[in-house]
């Protein structure tokens, strides 16, 4: 009954109204604005990569684009750093979510459908990964890989701690779907296992998968900032994490260089908020019962 309502609701909504809640709209708008800001990074002037090109610790002024957000203690433009940081942080987030969520998806579905020994082995592995506290493990890996670190590799490192959660959730959903009447009915209509996975099970996982991708992005951005606190992100590149790393390094907070401190932290918080709103927006859209609750 419940499934039928959700499925029907989904179907009708997609066909007719495309009605999304306020949360989704607000989140998407904030995200869109941040993205536009990030896209400005393609206009970055070549001199942005040099240190001490600008006067040090210059407060914001409107004399040129470079000075809109002022400059840092090492003579770089906060504005260009921020635009580049947004793009780089999002690249890390996307690499992580694409890797982690899809590994989780494949392992979760296989585990849920196959059952038996395969399921037991995969879930034991997954549980063991969950049992390892993620941060110390990532720190160890990032420290060892420091000499060859890049955006993609950083995404891979963060994926290692992100996939088990996806796998567990997808498996739980698959297990509950496997016993649903419509799957049994499809089976007794002679559909092959693969056909059932694609046409009966996958559409029901899609909603969770979408929110999971967004939540994993959120987690990855946070994890990068965490690594950066320890100087383990890509220090020579602008990311939201490394911006905060340099702020810490130069004691910008205690010198009250607010123009340097506020932009990355505010962007981070807005980015977290927007991704979270989008993900709960999708969740509520898929499951209207939640609308009242959260």
């Amino acid at each position, binding site marked *: 009954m419940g499934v039928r309502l959700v499925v029907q609701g989904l179907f009708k909504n997609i066909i007719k109204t495309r009605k999304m809640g306020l949360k989704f709209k607000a989140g998407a708008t904030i995200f869109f604005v941040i993205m536009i800001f990030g896209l400005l990074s393609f206009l970055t002037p070549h001199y942005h990569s040099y240190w001490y090109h600008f006067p040090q610790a210059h407060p914001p002024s409107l004399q040129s684009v470079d000075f809109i957000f002022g400059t840092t203690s090492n003579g770089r433009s906060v504005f260009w750093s921020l635009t580049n940081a947004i793009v780089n942080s999002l690249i890390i987030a996307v690499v992580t979510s694409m890797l982690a969520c899809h590994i989780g998806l494949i392992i979760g579905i296989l585990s849920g459908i196959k059952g038996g020994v395969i399921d037991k082995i995969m879930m*034991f*592995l997954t*549980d*063991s*990964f*969950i*049992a*390892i*506290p*993620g*941060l*110390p*493990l990532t*720190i*160890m*890996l990032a*420290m*060892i*890989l420091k*000499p*060859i670190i890049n955006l993609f590799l950083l995404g891979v490192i963060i994926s*290692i701690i992100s996939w088990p959660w996806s796998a567990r959730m997808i498996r739980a959903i698959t297990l509950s779907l496997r016993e649903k009447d419509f799957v049994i009915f499809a089976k007794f209509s002679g559909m092959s296992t693969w056909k059932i996975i694609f046409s009966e099970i996958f559409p029901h996982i899609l909603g969770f998968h979408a929110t999971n991708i967004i939540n994993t992005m*959120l987690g990855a951005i*946070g994890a990068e*900032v*965490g690594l950066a*606190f*320890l*100087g*383990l992100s890509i220090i020579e590149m602008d990311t939201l994490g490394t911006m*905060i790393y340099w702020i*810490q390094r130069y004691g910008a*907070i*205690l010198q*009250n260089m607010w123009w340097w*401190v506020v932009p990355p*932290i505010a962007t*981070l*918080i807005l980015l*977290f*908020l927007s*991704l*979270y*709103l989008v993900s*709960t927006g999708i969740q509520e859209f898929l499951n209207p019962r939640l609308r*009242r*609750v*959260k």
Partner: protein
Amino acid sequence: MLPKHLIKYFLFRILILLATIFTAFTITFVILKIMPIDIVNNIIARSMAVTGAALGDPEAVRRMYEIYYEIFGLKGTFIEQYVSFLNRFLTMDFGISILARPATVQEVISYRLPWTVALLVFSTILSWVIGNIIGAVVSLFEGSKLSNILQSLAIILYPIPYYVFALVLIYIFGYIIPLFSLTPIRLPSNIFSLEFIITVFRAMTLPALSIIVIGALGWWFLSSRAMALNIISEDFYLYGEIRGLPKLHLLKKYLLKNILLPQITALSINLGTIFGGALLTEILFNYPGLGTLLYQAVNAGDYPLVLGIVSMSIIGVAVATCIMDLLYPLIDPRIRYR
């Protein structure tokens, strides 16, 4: 005396604990093994640069090499590598810390551990209790102004990691209202003096505050409120309300009773995340726990110490989760009855 099935469950859970720790270390071993990098030479070059003259003693250098070869599995057959690796991790015997030489890794960690445990236990329990109670209470006044404000606040706070929120707190309390010193603390030698307590309190307040605010008003508040609203929409609650039970009774017997059990499970699942967040928060406040130690170790290239902390975290979080699971049946009536 405990009933038979509980003893069976306890033994089984402890077996799971051992298996978890064992597999976690095995995974670490495999990951380190497939690293596309010559780890040992990197480390030795790094630590030679840092310690330089201090390790001039060739015997000490030789011992250091030996430990690294064992840790990163470069000595002997594959089985031997694996066994010596496990042995190092299980005993946390990583030799002398480069940063704090001549102290061993075990000594440095055991000195800092109580600080982290104190911060974690204090702030986790407090945020869990506060968040759940506020969530349940607010659900009774659904639709009121206060409820809406708290709800919006929670949505903003929920996705923010502790350590990013900590930056905001530093800005407020370190610069705008300079109540707390952010420089590394120096502990008075007499641990029973008033001065000692004040110093600990001052050191702990801000990191604890960032964990409690995010934890209580973000995480636990949201989930507790969601559960409470679900209960309120159920028939048995409506019946209680119609019977005219006082709100306090409804709150205690109907809401909290049904919220706290699943929230304990949620807490035990999230221990690892909370622990990681707390480590990073420590760094920002110069709190003398494992997190700050980890920061110093990473910066000094002190691999033995980093590995020691990794191993400590794996064992620590696994044991803590296990303890929570062992306590669970004592609380859950469904299991107690049988």
